[in-house]
Structures are given as C-alpha cells and as structure tokens.
C-alpha cells in the first residue's frame, strides 16, 4: 500500500476552494428557523395552560400550530442544520469543492421555499393528517425533487473526491439520503382530489403501519443518522483527536441502519396491529440499544484525556450534553417499546418528554455546538464571548431538565389515573378531565422551560451576530490535495469489502438501500396482503358523504394531536371509553379510514367510541365553548365551525377518490352523494332545532357532528357480530 501512497504523493497537488457561502446560508437558516420553530413550540406550550393563547383564531389554534411546531423544528431547524454540517464536512472529508454551486443554491432556496409553503399551508389547515408527514401532495413532490438535488450534489462531490477512503461520517450521510428518500416516497402515496387536498393511498391498519414505519425511521434517518455523521466529524475536529474507535464506528453504522428500520411497530403496541408485527418491533427496538450506546460511548470516549478542554470550551460542553442526551433517549426508547412499559407510556406526556430529550438535547445542542464552532471560523475571528456561550449552555441545560422532569411526572400521573379502579370495579377518575386538570401545573412548568431554552438561543444569536460583525466572511477556503490516481491498484492486503463498497460510493448507496428495504419490506408486505389479513367486519360500512366531509374537518383541525381513536385492549380503557359494550378497537373498523386517525397522544379522551355517547346538542355546545360543558377543559373553542360552510362542490370528487381507493360506494354514487349529504345535514339541523338550537345545515359544525356521532358505532349496533 505504501507504493500507492507514494504514487499519490508524487502526483502534482491540485489547488481548489471550499465553498463556505452555502454552509453559511444553511447555518443562518437553521438559526432563524430554530428561533421560529421553538417560539411556535412555546406558543403551543402556553396553550396547554391558557387555551385562549390561540388568540381566538383558527390559524393559531393548537391542532394546526402543533404540526407547524414539529415540522418547523424537524425539517426547518434540524433539516437546515443537517445540510450546513454536511456541506461543510463533506467538502473537507472529500478534499473537494461541492459538485455544483448551482445545485447547492437550488437546494438551499428550494428547501426554504418548501418551509415557507409549510408555514403557510399548515395554519390554513391544509394537512394530510399524518403525523410528521402533514404536508400536502404538491409540497411532498417538491420535497422529493429537492432531496434528489441534494443527493446528486452529494454524490457528485463524493465521486470527484481527492481522498480515497470514505470516512464513516460520509456513510451516515449516504444512508440518510437513501433512506429518507425511500421513506418519504412510500409514505406519501396519496390520491390528490384538488390542489392541496389528498387522501392517503393506504387505509386504517396499513396506513398506520406505513406511517409509523415512516415516523419511526424519520427519527432514525433524519434526526439521528445525519447528526451521528456530524458527531463523527465535529467531535474529533473540535477536540483535535481522532474518534475513539474507528472499528466501533463501523459496527455502529451497519448495526444501526440494519436494525433501526425494523423497529417502527413499537409505536403501535396494543393497537389494532398484528401481534407478529408488534413483537418484531419490540425485539428490534431492544436490540437497538447496542449500536446506539456503542455510538454514544465512541463519541464520549473520544474526549478521554481531553476533559480539561471540555471545561474551557462551551462548544465541547454542548457536544458532551448532546451525546449524553442521545444515549439517554436511545436507552429510554427501547425500554418504552417493551409492551409492559409501553402500556404505561403510550398516549401520555412521557412520550413528549422522551422526544424532547432527543430534540432539545441531541439535535438542539449539537446544532448549537456546530454554530459556535463554525461561525467564528467562517468569519476569521474568535467567538465574541465564551462567557455568553457558557451562559447559553447552562440556561439551555436547565431548560432541558425543566422540560423533561415535569413531563415525566405528568406522564406517570396520567397513566396511573387512567388505570386506577375502585374496589367495586369502577374507575376512580371516570371523568377524563380530572386527569387533565391534575397536571396543568406540570404544563406550566414545561412552558417555563421553553422560556429558558429559547432565552439561551437568543443569547447565542446575539453572540454569533457580534462574532460575525467582528470578522469578515471568508467566502472560499483555499486547499490543496493530490487527485486520486486513475490506475490505482489496491494492495492484496486490502480487504475485498473496502474495494467493493467504500471506494465505490454508488455501490454503497445501493447496498444501504437494499439493507433498509429488506427491513421495510418484511415489515410492510404482510399487511399489504391484508385483505385476508384484517378481519373484515360485516357491519362496518363506508362513511356517508356528510360524515366523510366532517372527517375532513376533523383532519383539518388536527384533532388527532390531542385525541386518539384507538381503544387498547385494557380493562381500564374499555371501561372508560365503551362502558356499555366493552369493545376495544378492532383492525376491521378502520378499513375505510384514509388516512387513519389513531393519534399518538391523549391530551383529551379517546374518541373512537364517542358516537352516540352524547346528544348532538352536547357536541354543538361543546365545540362552541368547551368550558361550558366541561368546566376546566383546556380544549379551545371552535366558533369558526359555526360560520363556515362545508364544501359541497368537492363531494362528488371525494366519493370518486374513495372509490378509486377501494371504498365500496355503489357505481355512480358520486352523483347522488350531495343530495344524501344535504338530507343528513337537514336531519341533524332539525334535531338541534327541536332542542332550541338554530343552525344552518350547511355549516361545518353539522358535518363534524355527523362524523363524531358515527365514530365507533358500527360495532355497537351489532354487538355479537364483532365477537364471532
């Protein structure tokens, strides 16, 4: 091998320039959207304590703003952070400028346009109703295109590199690109019915399985693997020493991408999902501890003998806490996927605590570390104030602690209260609201933690602006390296695997894709063969046109962000949500649900059996002013449903779309659907009139009541049939 090295050294050195502009642009974007996304997060946190913090507007009500928060933080803050880190490290690891400045620019502005489109469409209620994939179909297409541009630019750079070996960080970037592309495309199959409105291609159980396969792996391959790549680059860079064990990093990489993809079903334990898939999810989730902790230790042990540097450098402090938070959440995750633990954790604020340890600690702190490291470098100066950076570190860490502890407390409290029985077999807290009002102080503390964390971010922004002003931006950095030899012949001692994959990035891409596709396919294929697989229940019928419209309003308002539609097979749940028939949710009940609306968090009660539980007038009053019907409720009022008309023009198109997706409406029913909807609406309106409530049958509230009253009634009507 030494011959080769000599050969390469003897070749003339190329002179080339690293592009700093694109990196700086992404760094600015991640900072700006970090501030915005976290501010929106703070707003939704306050709405738990003061529901009126929605300003009485539909556009700023929780169900619409919560997706805005999650999308802003994941895709805008972390997304831009990924790109900044990749564009910086990839150039240097490949000893090459980015493949194309034009593609870099298109990537940058394309991504910011997508974010803008999301920021407009989500408050308008234009949503697919699938968590973390809420953006509608035109934006989905744009995401796919921009992602491909990113990929072309990345692979172009890798192909023209001047460093033969692909450092492990690049592997993580490649896996990120491939897997996110696959996840996004598979999960976004939807049938457009108009501009900005579509129905998920999948229904019920399939939709849930695909969605959480996506959701889980979005955490894995958008929030984790790219940041691991950044960890493997920036920790050695900042601490000035190589990674603790390169061997371990190889195990970390392959084990992580191999195992992660299988673990998705742990989001659906005890839900109406095949037992087999649930067990698969649990086993792989537990196995995930090994590579995750291997990676965490690898990051932390890199600092062995350099802990004195940690005391001095705020950047390293942020990194240490980030990696520690990665370790904590990747230990917690597998624990939560054990069925017995999941029975307690699922639908509670524990989940919220868990994801925020990851988001605030791992993603947030690693991004801050990157900013503190790169901005002074790119402006050719020193950080304006180490003191302020340290202040940011401590206030941010306090913010994480003040977030996590109250939410853990809230989660355990909820779960214990939901499950507590009296000696006579009745629920101690039969009224769900008691379990909400109990934890409002915890919600207040959580909002306080948000103030702390965000205050830290503002300190950082000030510090970085001062830093930038003190220096001048270095657009390009000159570098020199020898080009790769075209006639390079690997020494016989070099391993076949290296020859096959590591020097051949395209092969590496294909192999990564195959690896993740195997996991995806084995997990998903069985449920695609599902006709024989989800027991159909004869009494489950498609929604009436009015109910379907009401369902779309339910989706638009993001009701799923607080209400589940999934009664798990626990005594405490059937006793609470279906005290008459004691029916938990069956897979067969969701066969016409495009998209599924099982939800993942119960701030309010489950709604799967709410149909027929209350009279129409109760829903009428409740949607108008929840506090009148449930004193102490933190649900916001929905007065606009009483002003806006449900959309009549689009009903035939909706019916046709549903037929395309396999919902058995009679041939030609689209022509009759509107008349049926009008008739049903009039019936509801007349019924309300009897109770002295005047409402125009065209108002959205009527359609929503129709949907709510339908929920879960198919089984109730025919109680025996479901059991045979």
């Amino acid at each position: 091998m030494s011959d080769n090295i000599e050969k390469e050294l003897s070749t003339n050195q190329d002179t080339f320039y690293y592009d700093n502009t694109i990196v700086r642009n992404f760094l600015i974007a991640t900072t700006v959207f970090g501030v915005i996304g976290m501010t929106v997060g703070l707003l939704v946190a306050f709405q738990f304590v003061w529901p009126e913090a929605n300003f009485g507007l539909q556009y700023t009500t929780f169900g619409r703003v919560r997706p805005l928060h999650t999308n802003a933080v994941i895709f805008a803050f972390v997304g831009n952070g990924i790109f900044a880190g990749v564009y910086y490290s990839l150039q240097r690891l490949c000893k090459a400028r980015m493949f194309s400045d034009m593609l870099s620019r298109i990537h940058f502005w394309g991504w910011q346009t997508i974010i803008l489109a999301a920021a407009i469409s989500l408050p308008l209620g234009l949503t697919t109703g699938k968590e973390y994939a809420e953006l509608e179909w035109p934006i989905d297409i744009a995401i796919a295109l921009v992602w491909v541009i990113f990929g072309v630019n990345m692979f172009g750079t890798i192909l023209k590199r001047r460093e033969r070996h692909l450092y492990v960080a690049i592997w993580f970037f490649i896996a990120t690109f491939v897997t996110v592309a696959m996840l996004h495309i598979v999960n976004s199959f939807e049938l457009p019915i108009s501009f900005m409105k579509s129905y998920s291609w999948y229904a019920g159980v399939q939709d849930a399985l695909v969605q959480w396969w996506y959701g889980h792996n979005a955490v894995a391959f958008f929030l984790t693997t790219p940041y691991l790549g950044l960890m493997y680059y920036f920790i050695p860079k900042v601490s000035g020493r190589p990674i603790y064990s390169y061997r371990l990093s190889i195990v970390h990489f392959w084990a992580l991408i191999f195992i992660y993809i299988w673990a998705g079903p742990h989001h659906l334990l005890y839900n109406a999902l095949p037992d087999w898939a649930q067990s698969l999810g649990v086993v792989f989730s537990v196995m995930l501890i090994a590579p995750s902790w291997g990676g965490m230790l690898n990051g932390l042990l890199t600092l062995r003998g350099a802990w004195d540097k940690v005391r001095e450098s705020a950047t390293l402090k942020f990194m240490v806490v980030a990696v520690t938070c990665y370790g904590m959440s990747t230990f917690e995750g597998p624990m939560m996927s054990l069925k017995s633990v999941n029975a307690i954790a699922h639908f509670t604020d524990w989940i919220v605590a868990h994801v925020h340890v990851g988001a605030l600690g791992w993603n947030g702190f690693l991004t801050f570390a990157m900013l503190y490291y790169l901005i002074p470098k790119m402006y050719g100066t020193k950080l304006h104030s180490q003191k302020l950076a340290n202040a940011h570190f401590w206030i941010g860490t306090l913010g994480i602690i003040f977030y996590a502890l109250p939410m853990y407390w809230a989660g355990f409290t909820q779960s214990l209260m939901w499950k507590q029985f009296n000696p006579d077999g009745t629920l101690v807290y039969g009224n769900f609201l008691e379990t909400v009002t109990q934890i409002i102080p915890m919600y207040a503390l959580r909002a306080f933690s948000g103030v702390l964390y965000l205050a830290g971010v503002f300190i950082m922004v000030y510090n970085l602006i001062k830093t930038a002003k003190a220096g001048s931006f270095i657009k390009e950095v000159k570098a020199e390296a020898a080009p790769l030899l075209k006639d390079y012949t690997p020494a016989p001692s070099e391993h076949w695997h290296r020859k096959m994959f590591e020097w051949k990035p395209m092969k590496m891409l294909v192999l990564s894709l195959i690896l993740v596709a195997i996991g995806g396919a084995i997990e998903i294929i069985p449920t695609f063969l599902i006709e024989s697989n989800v027991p159909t229940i004869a009494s489950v019928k498609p929604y009436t046109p009015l109910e379907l419209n009401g369902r779309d309003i339910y989706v638009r308002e993001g009701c799923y962000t607080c209400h589940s539609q999934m009664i798990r097979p626990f005594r405490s749940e059937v006793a609470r949500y279906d005290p008459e028939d004691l029916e938990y949710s069956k897979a067969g009940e969701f066969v016409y649900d495009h998209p599924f609306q099982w939800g993942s968090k119960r701030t309010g009660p489950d709604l799967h059996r709410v149909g027929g539980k209350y009279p129409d007038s109760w829903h009428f009053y409740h949607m108008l002013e929840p506090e009148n019907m449930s004193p102490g409720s933190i649900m916001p009022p929905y007065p606009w449903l009483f002003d806006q008309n449900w959309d009549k023009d689009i009903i035939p198109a909706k019916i046709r779309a549903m037929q395309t997706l396999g919902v058995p409406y009679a041939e030609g029913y689209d022509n009759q659907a509107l008349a049926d909807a009008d008739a049903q609406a009039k019936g509801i309106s007349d019924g309300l009139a009897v109770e002295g409530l005047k409402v125009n049958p065209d108002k959205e509230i009527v359609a929503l009541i129709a949907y709510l009253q339908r929920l879960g009634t198919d089984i109730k009507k025919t109680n025996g049939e479901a059991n045979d």
Partner: protein
Amino acid sequence: MLKFIKHHMETISGIEIFPLISLVIFFVFFVGLTIYLVKADKKLFNKIANIPLDSKESDHEED
C-alpha cells in the same frame, strides 16, 4: 378476546418463514461483520480515523 389482534397473520400462507428469514439474515450479516472487523487492518483504520484532522487548508482551520 385477543383473537382479533393475535391471529391476523395466520391467513397468509407461509408467513411462519418471515421471522426465520429475518433471523438468518441478521445472524449471517453480523457474524460476517464481526469476522471482518477482527481481521481488519488496524493501521488503515487509524489512517482513516485521522481524515477529519489532517486538513491542508491554508486558513486557520486548526486552532
């Protein structure tokens, strides 16, 4: 009572093979990975691990 959750998969013929395939894939893959890592050249790994550190940039990349 749990039969609605438990028995979905039994209707697909040959479904029992799925977990078995998974196990075999994993076993082979990780044994292979272990063998590779045990046999791998440590000097080369050290060289690769130093890639982030040996930049030849002309500005103050290193501090």
